[in-house]
């Protein structure tokens, strides 16, 4: 075992030294430069650019614009990774069933009451972060993970039983998750579908007017820009992330009795 540790340590140290050398020798350009990379400048100048709509997503927030518009396909498949992980978790615990009445008590009354007051406040904070994703820092993931942690917190504070009695069972979370994902999917191909129906050229993940396509999402809602698809993406993504993470945590936190029952059923394997 000692030898193995030494080998690992040496190779890791080599890699680290190499990395440090590349960094310090300017392999990534100067550290903390005064000039931006040209691509970054293009993103910053085009994220909200009503004077050049064909390369813009009309969002005040450059990061959300990149995440959901310029590199929308990345984010779509990133959501799919999360989806695959949740499917995987439910796959390895398949056959489980939440059973109320095992005797979860949760934490003390004070913590419970405080968390109860927090619930609507944090929920609305998460929703607001998601809704303002194209205006202020934040977006679908941020808002969704706020809500998800809230649900995790509620599971820990109130115990599973409480949540299951109040209807927050995995079936319902799965339905919410699917609704969110299908919403993301529908938003991503919405303009393409319209284009195909009308016989006009359109792109997957199209947002605003593009070269060769006149279709466009709404640019303003009331007195603020919407960023076209970004608002929809953020809302659906928040829903999907929140429900998905909460679902995964719920399945992981199943009590020994429940998991044991699912496992005891026995599965055939090769």
């Amino acid at each position, binding site marked *: 075992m000692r030898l193995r540790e030494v080998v690992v340590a040496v190779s890791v140290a080599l890699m680290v030294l190499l990395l440090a050398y590349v960094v310090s020798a300017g392999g990534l350009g100067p550290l903390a430069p005064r000039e931006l990379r040209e691509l*970054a400048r293009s993103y910053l100048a085009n994220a909200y650019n009503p004077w050049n709509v064909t390369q813009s997503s009309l969002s005040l927030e450059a990061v959300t614009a990149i995440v959901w518009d310029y*590199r929308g396909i990345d984010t779509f498949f990133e959501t799919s990774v999360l989806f695959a*992980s949740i499917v995987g978790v439910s796959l390895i615990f398949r056959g489980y069933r939440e059973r109320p009445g095992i005797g979860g008590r949760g934490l003390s009354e004070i913590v419970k009451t405080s968390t109860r007051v927090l619930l609507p406040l944090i929920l609305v904070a998460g929703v607001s972060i998601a809704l303002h994703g194209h205006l202020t820092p934040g977006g679908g993931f941020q808002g969704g993970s706020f809500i998800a942690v809230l649900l995790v917190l509620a599971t820990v504070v109130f115990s599973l039983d409480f949540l299951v009695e109040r209807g927050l069972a995995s079936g319902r979370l799965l339905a919410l998750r699917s609704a969110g994902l299908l919403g993301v999917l529908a938003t991503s191909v919405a303009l393409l579908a319209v284009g195909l129906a009308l016989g006009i050229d359109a792109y997957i993940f199209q947002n605003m007017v593009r070269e060769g396509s006149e279709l466009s999402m709404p640019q303003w809602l009331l007195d603020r820009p919407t960023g076209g698809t970004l608002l929809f993406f953020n809302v659906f993504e928040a829903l999907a992330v929140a429900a998905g993470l909460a679902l995964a945590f719920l399945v992981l936190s199943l009590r020994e009795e429940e998991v044991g029952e699912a496992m005891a059923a026995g599965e055939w394997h090769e």
Partner: protein
Amino acid sequence: MSDPTTFLFAVVVLSLVANTGISLYGVFTRPSLVKKFISLTIFSDTLNSFAIAIGFRRVVGPYPSAAVLSSVPEDPDELLAFAGSAVDPLPQALVLTAIVIGLAVYMFLAGLIMLYHRHYRTTRMV
């Protein structure tokens, strides 16, 4: 290195590099799966921080701003000024993606480790 900011920034980046090494060592040599799990989270967080460090920049004015316009611009000059003072948004978008992907993998790994413990009654794995 004459400039204090450059020096301090180098300290940040090199400590990230050091963290990469420490956590990678933890992943490969600690016997407990839970410890491997923790080291793995630190490892990928460190790589992400590295990307953020790549995207940082300095400006002539006081301090760079985040990649968010604080109000709807009225004319193209405002956009140029914004591009002249904001940090690089692309690494942030990439890291956002990477963080969520990492989270997905950890969730699944946690389930697997529980299952492993059910089967073997230990989390030791060499």
